[in-house]
């Protein structure tokens, strides 16, 4: 790693101020950022840890019934405490491995927007709201392609609000080496329709499968996916699978998520 300063502010305001320094970068749980720094792929002047900010910690229930998760909340905490949204808790319970879940945070994951990460699928699939120190961003506007989000420089995810669906499920088909999603599908059935968000597959990062959403909105059963398919052309093609294989998996895994939705 290149060397950097380390700072651990106690409030969002202090964190924002600290991130004002040139080339400063926010540090969530570090489970992706620290390995990236080890490869010397980034050279921040300063890392601003968000873990010491009490107001960004924990899971609570919003007035509208949504599940609200502080941006610095670990996956382990979400798995244990987001019982009001079981599919979300289950998603968190299978991110990475136990030691990673004890450090990694939802804000860190969403800010990074790895194309194979689980949380982007959960947030997009739930139509979550990403609250920052300056604004609220709808998930549909937030994800803008691989490792790209609507966040501005120095903007901090303070909270993520998930409306709780009638039924939902996340199914992950893992890439055998990294154990990230080769294809992960988050399906959520709301009163006003079904959302299907897919991670791991696309060159554009997490995306909604609108055709499947339409079919499932009128018939929420695995059979509704029969005959639907995605093109492999814009899918990731690598050592672990071609675009066509990923496109095929999208349908298979979507059906499984629908069948398992509770």
């Amino acid at each position, binding site marked *: 790693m*290149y060397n950097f300063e380390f700072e651990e502010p106690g409030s969002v305001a202090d964190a924002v101020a600290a991130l004002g320094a040139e080339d400063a970068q926010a540090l969530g749980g570090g489970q992706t950022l620290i390995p990236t720094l080890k490869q010397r792929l980034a050279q921040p002047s300063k890392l601003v840890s968000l873990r010491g900010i009490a107001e960004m910690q924990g899971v609570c229930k919003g007035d509208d019934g949504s599940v609200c998760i502080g941006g610095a909340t670990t996956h382990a905490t979400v798995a244990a405490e987001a019982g009001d949204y079981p599919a979300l808790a289950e998603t968190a319970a299978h991110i990475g491995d136990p030691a990673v879940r004890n450090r990694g945070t939802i804000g860190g994951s969403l800010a990074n927007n790895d194309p194979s990460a689980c949380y982007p699928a959960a947030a997009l699939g739930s139509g979550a709201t990403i609250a920052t120190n300056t604004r609220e961003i709808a998930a549909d506007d937030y994800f803008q392609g691989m490792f790209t989000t609507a966040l501005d420089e120095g903007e901090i995810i303070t909270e993520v609000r998930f409306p709780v669906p009638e039924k939902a499920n996340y199914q992950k088909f893992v890439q055998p*080496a*990294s154990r990230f999603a080769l294809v992960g599908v988050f399906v959520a059935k709301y009163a006003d329709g079904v959302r299907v968000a897919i991670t791991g597959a696309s060159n554009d990062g997490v995306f909604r499968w609108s055709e499947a959403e339409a079919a499932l909105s009128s018939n929420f059963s695995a059979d509704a996916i029969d005959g639907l398919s995605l093109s492999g052309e814009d899918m990731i093609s*690598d*050592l672990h*699978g071609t675009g066509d*294989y990923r496109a095929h998996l999208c349908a298979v895994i979507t059906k499984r998520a629908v069948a398992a939705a509770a």
Partner: protein
Amino acid sequence: MPKDGGIGASSKRREDVRFLTGAGNYTDDINMHGQAYVHFLRSDVAHGTIKSIDTSAAAGMPGVVRVFTGADFEGVGSIPCGWQVTDRHGQPMQEPAHPILAQGKVRHVGEPVAAVVAETYEQARDAAEAIGLDIDELPAVVDMKAALDSGATKVHDDLNDNLCYDWGFVEENKEAVNKAFDDAAHVTSLELVNNRLVANPMEPRVAVGDYARGTDESTLYTTSQNPHVIRLLMGAFVLGIPEHKLRVVAPDVGGGFGTKIFHYQEEAFCTFAAKACNRPVKWTSSRSEAFISDAHGRDHVTKIELALDADNNFTAIRTETHANMGAYLSTFAPSVPTWLHGTLMAGNYKTPLIYVNVKAVFTNTVPVDAYRGAGRPEATFQLERVVDKAARELGVDPIALRRQNFITEFPYATPVAVEYDTGDYHGTMDKLEEIADFSGFAARRTESEKHGKLRGLGVNCYIEACGIAPSNLVGQLGARAGLYESATVRVNATGGLVVMTGSHSHGQGHETSFAQVVAEMIGIDESMVEIVHGDTANTPMGMGTYGSRSIAVGGSAMVRATEKIINKAKKIASHLLEASEADIELKDGAFSVAGTDKSVAWGDVTLAAYVPHNYPLEDIEPGLEETAFYDPANFTYPSGAYACEVEVDPDTGKVTIDRFAAADDFGNIINPMIVTGQVHGGIAQGIGQALLENCAYDENGQLLSASYMDYAMPRADDLPMFSVDHSSQTPCTHNPLGVKGCGEAGAIGSPPAVVNAVVDALQSAGKGVTHIDMPLSPDRVWAAMNG
């Protein structure tokens, strides 16, 4: 009743206590006073000409002690190759120079080009980035067959072409083999890949060089399976340091699996730089660095043909293999596709005629050398796959076809130069049928089908050759080393023993199992025996641990040395007991006179040896310390039969191993618990090869699977519990313990069982799939099903 000590007992491992409490002493745990750290600047291109290296900025960076480039090593020796193969025309292989730091050209991603020694590791790495390196990139040679095309880019300009050797075995059999194929009633052929692997012991390699100016002595601490081999190769061929001025220490080593046999540039560099900088120099590999600098394994492309007569007897085998050497010849690389592969092509079968052709090829990739099994997994995989395919083509039971062709009489001389001393292939297959519950398979298949899954059963046999020997034979075959082993047994005055062995334990548990043997021979408690290994300063010249040789060769040396101790102790006892030496018996730690109640305890005899007041000084010297070197008469030939049951998800192609059974014949067993553990680990690596692990390069010679993000290591949830049996025992006839070795069996025996099982599963669903190349990752299985 299980024994509670000595040979055959599952003694708990004594080394575990330090490993379980964080008190191990691995090379990276060693820190020398005043040590500096080295970071290697490695080539990020596969092939290129070095136009310039500017180190001036780096040299002025904070903490930098010195920057080295290839120019600092002009006149220093090349990293040597330990085995010279002669091709089928009688010509020696082509052997390129292998520099410590690149000279003029870079030939694989990861080749060290420059090295920065600095006060801290991060400072060294910071400064390495300031080195101005200008490389003129050349086309990369990656595909082995294309590498042999006329006009192909040459990896080494000073060689004729990219062909290291073209080996034929047995060349004299070639015409007879061809005729047998002309006369065959049926021929089954198969083209397959034995995938390239990275050994990945969990401890990355580390080297610490130290130099004592006052005595002109160099010491290297290194993660090695064979410190004496490193001392010899590095001292004599690279740095020109006489062995009495060079000490090599391999302390606790965190796994080897072959890749820590070889002498690497980083070892020579640290030893050289410690003297040049006059301070200790330490290198600790990162895992990312390991992927591009540890020798890789396997990487064969083979066409195998099996000829059968009208009664389904095997009449001939013919193979053609391309074997990747990588960019340089690693220490034992040339031997792996030849003498460790061709000689095993008979397998468990009495096929009378065999011809093996191997073309070893240079490419712009990391050197390839021995990895657990080394040549024998490649032989077993192709043979057991083609036999399985033949059974399916002929519509006969794969087990029945194997049994029909088993070798049943021993000793058996194969047509590929080796002679199996003992074995019972029906015996291990019988045992397998019992532990694998073949009779329950049909019901399990039905159950899987109910859940939309395909179930397959795959079986295979294997034969292994361990403890490669004897030295005079391997010398004729091209080995530039002997393959004996040594042991010194030092008995202390109060009766405790220290065994200094040339074998090296890096997970095998020698400290426990070797002690069991000596304790049993003398009849004392295991706690009285200490095993010392891994330091050239206090162990006799030894060849180290690889090729499942430790108990068969190192253990035999230890037995011979202990026999010498016992013989001398009997002389002392006969003096103390005033009896004839011929009448002295040693039992349960006491010497007695046959037919009397006269006896003297072991400790009294050892004390007499060192306090020789009442002692036959006119006949024998005081003291009780003996050394033996043991050079085996033959290889040992463990064998076995393995079965794998898989479930395949037809929607995704994902293969799940549901059951795995292994019935092995290792001859006599010293510690059944340790042997079982060795088999477990081997099976896991074999399943890893079959389903998960894939070391892949792109067409530019960039490694695609360069970290655990893309190289799939088997994890706990990839594997089932294993059913392992080694009660079928035909002891080796030519070593004193009757042992055969068990370290590689699991890795050799398991890949074909997995692939056979997947093919069985797919064919059960009416798919015409006859082969899928490893690893059988979900995308490949799905593609095969839908191809």
